């Protein structure tokens, strides 16, 4: 059976991708952010996951308002990025694992999650930036991926509790996969930031630090938050924290040990967070 070895969460701002493309990791502005990653990459090098389930949100690349899914899961043989309107450069394609995808789809639909299934799917910076941060775009790529996109574009968004519960079902689905694979779940996005409106630039350090602590030690405390609470406390785009909750829900079948945690303000308009939790069986 497959083993869920741990969960990682990281912010996924486009500016990070540009900083990587331009080699700015040691630049004074960027260094404190990038310095969080070596311990996570060391863990990945040691644990060597075969598959990464990447929870992200599409920011208007693959999905438009004509067919906007609440939960969409990839079932493609590979995934490519695109320029997103900003001329981002093409990365090496990310190999998929369609058999694993279909196993997860069977289990999640049986558990009453109403997925959209995507046998072809462009992945945007919400997906690629964490991949670049964690696996540094080494080719051939070290992991196969299953992207899982959560709607944060069109309200109503799925509630924090629904997302956590999706994670719980996802964790069970992963560990019922009949192949001897090591699987890591990656939650992306957040923490507090807001791009739109007169409150643009809003960051809430105190709330972010509370979230970082609660998601490790007492995730249940976060599940009564509404989307409205999240938007109020973490900014419009801070609602991306629901993606972290999917990751944390997946780990709920195990105990967790915290391996790495980092918080830094600002990365572009964002309070940037990083977290690595290892499964303790």
């Amino acid at each position, binding site marked *: 059976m497959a083993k869920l070895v741990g969960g990682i969460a990281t912010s996924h701002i486009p500016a990070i991708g540009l900083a990587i493309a331009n080699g700015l990791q040691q630049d004074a502005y960027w260094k404190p952010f990038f310095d969080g990653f070596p311990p996570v990459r060391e863990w990945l090098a040691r644990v060597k996951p075969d598959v990464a389930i990447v929870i992200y949100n599409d920011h*208007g690349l693959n999905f438009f308002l004509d067919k906007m899914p609440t939960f969409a899961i990839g079932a493609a043989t590979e995934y490519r990025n695109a320029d997103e309107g900003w001329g981002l450069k093409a990365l090496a394609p990310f190999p998929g694992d369609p058999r694993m995808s279909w196993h997860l789809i069977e289990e999640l639909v049986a558990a009453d999650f109403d997925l959209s299934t995507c046998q072809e799917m462009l992945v945007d910076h919400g997906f690629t930036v964490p991949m670049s941060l964690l696996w540094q775009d080494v080719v051939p790529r070290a992991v196969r991926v299953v992207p899982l996109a959560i709607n944060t574009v069109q309200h109503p968004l799925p509630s924090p509790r629904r997302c956590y519960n999706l994670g719980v079902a996802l964790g069970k689905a992963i560990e019922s996969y009949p192949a001897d694979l090591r699987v890591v779940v990656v939650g992306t996005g957040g923490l507090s930031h807001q791009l739109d*409106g007169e409150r*643009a630039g*809003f960051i809430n350090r105190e709330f972010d630090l509370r979230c970082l602590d609660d998601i490790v030690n007492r995730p249940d405390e976060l599940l009564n938050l509404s989307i409205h609470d999240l938007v109020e406390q973490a900014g419009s785009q801070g609602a991306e924290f629901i993606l972290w909750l999917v990751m944390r829900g997946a780990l709920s079948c195990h105990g967790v040990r915290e391996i790495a945690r980092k918080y830094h303000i600002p990365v572009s308009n964002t309070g940037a967070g990083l977290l690595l939790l290892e499964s303790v069986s």
Partner: protein
Amino acid sequence: MATVRAPIWGTPIFDGAQAIKGYALNKMCYSFNDAVNRNEFLANEAAYCARFGLNPEQYAAIQNRNVLQLIAAGGNIYYLAKFAGILGLNVQDIGAQQTGMTVEAFKAKLLAAGV
């Protein structure tokens, strides 16, 4: 029944009402994912906007390059970001525009949030 919540100052929520209002504008901005469409827009803005059926409020907001007006006209920030890309504006530039600050002052505000 889903709870109705109090508005949050300066914080647009892209809900159904906004979605209804902004469909044409958002559809146009979504098309900017493709460089061919970006170039077509730049070659003839009026014709491109007309093709997507923008209403006068939306067209004026596009002409004015004004993010708050675009949001008021039903624009969704994720699709608008593709329009900002055409103009060479990043999220700090549009943050400064919406808050009425200089870009330098906006960046200083973000740095200050970290201390």
